[in-house]
C-alpha cells in the first residue's frame, strides 16, 4: 500500500534566501545584497559593502594636504571634478584662504559640467537596469562630449585633479569656452530627446511610480541628501544653504518632488540638468578677469613660470665663487649630475660640460658662494670668474625666481603647515552632500581626515526603501539612490 504524506507537509512554504552581487551588473559596482524573500516579496534586505575599501582616510593622514588631492578622484570616479572641488573648498576653509573670483567661477562651471555628466551616467544606467536600452546610448553620446571638454581644460578625462587648493591649476582657453557654449545650445534639445523616450512611457511609469516611497520626515531622519532627499519635497541644497564658490552670484532654482518615489527623484534630476545649464551660462557671462590661483605664499605653490630653471632655461651658467666657498660639500651631495668636484674644506668647482642647469646647488648653498651668470653658457671658467657677482648683487627677478624654487622644494618635501583646529565643510556633489571633516594639529598633514560620502548613507537606506516591494524593484531602488561604490567604501 502506498503511504500518502499529509498535504500540509508537501506544500510547506518557507522564506527563500537569495544572494545578489557582488558581481551583479545592476548593483553599480561591488555591492552585495542578501535578500530574504517570501514568494517574490522582500522580507529582509541586508547590503554588504566594503569590497572597494582602500583606507583613504588612513592614507590621507599619512600625506600632506595637496598630496591627498588625487585620492578624492578615486572616490566618486563618475564625477571626480565635484569631489576635487569639495576637497579644495574644505582645505581652503581650514587654512583660512579664499580662491580668486575667476577661479571660483571656473570651478562653478566645471562643477556643473560634472553634475551634468554624472546625471547622464546615472540616467543611462538606471534606464538600462529597468530595461530601456536606447537611453543608455543617447546619454553616453552627450557624456562623451563633456569628457572631451574636461580633456580640453585639464588633459584628463576621468580622474581629473584640475582644481587646486587656492584656485585651479590653469586658466581656461577660448576654445573651451566656445565649445561649452555650443554644448549648452545643443543640450536642451537632447534632454527633450531622453524625456520623449521615457517620461510618459508606460513601462517606465510602472517600474518607477510608487516604488521606494519615503516621506520627507523619514528621509531627513535617515540622513538623505541631494536629489534623493529633494525627491521627497525638501529643498535642501548646500549651494543655497551655505553657498561656496560662485553659487551666491548666480540665479537658479532647486527642483523638488512631492511623492518621494523613484519617478519624482528621476524628475528632480532631469530638472537639475536644466538648472545646471542655466548656472553655466550665467558663469560664462559673468566670468571676471584676473589670476586663477590665490596669492597666498604660505599655502599655495609658487607659479611655475616664475621659478629658476624655467625663467632662464638655456643661457645661464652656475659658478662657485672661490673666496666665499667653505667646502662644506652640501652642493656636491645635492648635485644630481655629479658635476661638482672638490675636497673637504677647499673650494669646489663645477664641471660646466656636465652641469644640467637644474639650480639644485644654487638653492642648497648656505654660504652665498654659489651664483648665476646669465648668458654665461659655454664660456670658460676664467671668463665666468670675471663676470660672476655675489648672489646678493644679482638682478631682482633672478633672486625672486630662486626664492620661489626654494619654496617649491619646501612645499614638496614638507608641505605647508596648517593652523590648529577642526572644520566640517560640506559641498553639493551630484549625489548629495559630500562632507570633509578635518582635524589639524598644526603640522603639514591632517591629524584626521574624515570623508562623509553620500553613497554610504544612501546605501544604508536601501533596506528601508525596498522592504515590501518585489525583487525587480530592488534594481530600481539601487538605481534611484545613485550610488558609486568607490565613494561608499572609500
Amino acid at each position, binding site marked *: 500500500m502506498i503511504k500518502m504524506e499529509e498535504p500540509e507537509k508537501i506544500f510547506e512554504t518557507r522564506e527563500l534566501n537569495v544572494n545578489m552581487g557582488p558581481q551583479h551588473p545592476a548593483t553599480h559596482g561591488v555591492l552585495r545584497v542578501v535578500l530574504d524573500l517570501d514568494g517574490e516579496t522582500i522580507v529582509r534586505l541586508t547590503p554588504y*559593502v*566594503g569590497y572597494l*575599501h582602500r*583606507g583613504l*582616510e*588612513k*592614507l590621507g593622514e*599619512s600625506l600632506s594636504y595637496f598630496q591627498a588631492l588625487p585620492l578624492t578622484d578615486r572616490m566618486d570616479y563618475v564625477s571626480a571634478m565635484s569631489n576635487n572641488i569639495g576637497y579644495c573648498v574644505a582645505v581652503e*576653509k*581650514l587654512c*583660512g584662504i579664499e580662491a580668486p573670483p575667476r577661479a571660483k567661477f571656473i570651478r562653478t562651471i566645471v562643477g556643473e559640467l560634472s553634475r551634468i555628466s554624472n546625471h547622464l551616467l546615472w540616467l543611462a544606467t538606471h534606464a538600462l537596469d529597468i530595461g530601456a536600452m536606447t537611453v543608455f546610448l543617447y546619454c553616453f553620446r552627450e557624456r562623451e562630449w563633456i569628457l572631451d571638454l574636461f580633456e580640453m581644460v585639464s588633459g584628463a578625462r576621468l580622474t581629473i585633479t584640475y582644481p587646486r587648493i587656492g584656485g585651479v591649476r590653469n586658466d581656461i582657453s577660448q576654445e573651451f569656452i566656445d565649445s561649452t557654449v555650443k554644448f549648452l545650445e545643443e543640450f536642451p534639445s537632447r534632454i527633450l530627446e531622453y524625456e520623449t523616450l521615457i517620461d510618459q512611457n508606460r513601462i517606465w511609469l510602472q517600474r518607477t*511610480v510608487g516604488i521606494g516611497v519615503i516621506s520627507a520626515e*523619514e528621509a*531627513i*531622519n*535617515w*540622513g*538623505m541628501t541631494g536629489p534623493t532627499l529633494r525627491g521627497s519635497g*525638501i*529643498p*535642501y541644497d548646500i549651494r*543655497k*544653504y551655505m553657498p561656496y564658490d560662485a553659487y551666491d552670484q548666480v*540665479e*537658479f*532654482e*532647486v*527642483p*523638488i*518632488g*512631492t*511623492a518621494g*518615489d523613484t*519617478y*519624482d527623484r528621476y*524628475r*528632480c534630476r532631469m*530638472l537639475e540638468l536644466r538648472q545646471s545649464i542655466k548656472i553655466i551660462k550665467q558663469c560664462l557671462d559673468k566670468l571676471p578677469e584676473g589670476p586663477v590661483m590665490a596669492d597666498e605664499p604660505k599655502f599655495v605653490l609658487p607659479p611655475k613660470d616664475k621659478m629658476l630653471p624655467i625663467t632662464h632655461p638655456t643661457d645661464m651658467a652656475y659658478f662657485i665663487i672661490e673666496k666665499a666657498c667653505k667646502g662644506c660639500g652640501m652642493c656636491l651631495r645635492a648635485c644630481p649630475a655629479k658635476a661638482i668636484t672638490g675636497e673637504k674644506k677647499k673650494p669646489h668647482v663645477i664641471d660646466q660640460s656636465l652641469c644640467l642647469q637644474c639650480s639644485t646647488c644654487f638653492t642648497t648653498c648656505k654660504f652665498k658662494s654659489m651664483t648665476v651668470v646669465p648668458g654665461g653658457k659655454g664660456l670658460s671658467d676664467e671668463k665666468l670668474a670675471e663676470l660672476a657677482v655675489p648672489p646678493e648683487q644679482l638682478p631682482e627677478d633672478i633672486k625672486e625666481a630662486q626664492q620661489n624654487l626654494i619654496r617649491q622644494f619646501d612645499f614638496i618635501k614638507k608641505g605647508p603647515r596648517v593652523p590648529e*583646529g*577642526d*572644520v*566640517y565643510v*560640506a559641498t553639493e556633489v551630484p549625489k548629495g*552632500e559630500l*562632507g570633509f*571633516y578635518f*582635524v589639524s*594639529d598644526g603640522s603639514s598633514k591632517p*591629524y*584626521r581626515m*574624515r570623508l*562623509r560620502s553620500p553613497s*554610504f*548613507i544612501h*546605501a*544604508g*537606506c536601501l533596506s*528601508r526603501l525596498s522592504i515590501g516591494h518585489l525583487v525587480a524593484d530592488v534594481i530600481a531602488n539601487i538605481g534611484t539612490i545613485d550610488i558609486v561604490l568607490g565613494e561608499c*567604501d*572609500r
Partner: protein
Amino acid sequence: MAVTEVKAGIYAAGIDPEQIAGRIKEHFPEQVIEVTNHRDQVSVIIKKDQSVAILRYLHDDPHLSFDHLNDLTAVDWSSKKEVRFEVVYNLMSLKYRHRIRIKAQVPENNAKIGTVVPIWAGADWHERECYDLFGIEFVGHPDLRRILMPEDWEGYPLRKDYPLKGPDFEKDWPGFVEVVKRSQELKEFEWDD
C-alpha cells in the same frame, strides 16, 4: 507626482551657534566641558554619560530642531589628550539652517557610548563604521557588526597605533615569485623563430 520648482532665499534664519552652546550649558551645566570656536564653527565638548540625552534634547527642542545628522565619526587623540577618543556629531537643522558640532569624550579603558539610532535612523551605518575602524562600542545599537573591513579582521585600522603598512608590504607578492620561478623552469621550451 508633479515636480515644482521653489524660489531660493525662503529659508528661515537660524540661531547663532554660540547661543546654542549656551543653551546646552543651561540645560546640562555639569556635562559641558568646553566650547570652542574655529573659523565660525562652534564645537561643544561634553562628557559621554549624558550624551544621548543632550542629543535627544537638541533633536526634540522646537527652537533648535536638529533634525539632520550630517556626520558621525571619531577622532583618536592617542596620547595627545587625557581622554583618548572623541566621538564627533555634526548636526544640522534643515528648518532653521544652523549647525553645531558635539564632541563626546570616550576613554580608552571603557570605550562605550550610547547609540543615537533611535534619534536619527541614519546613524546606523555611521556607528557601525565607527565601531569597525575605531573599536568604540555603541551600547544599544541594533546590529553592531563590522562594515568596511572583513568580519574576521583583527585590530581597528583608524587608531593611531595601527600601522600604515602591513609587515609584508615591502616583500614581493608570493604568487609573483612563483610565476618568475616557473618562467625560469620553462625557459628551455621558448619558441625560436
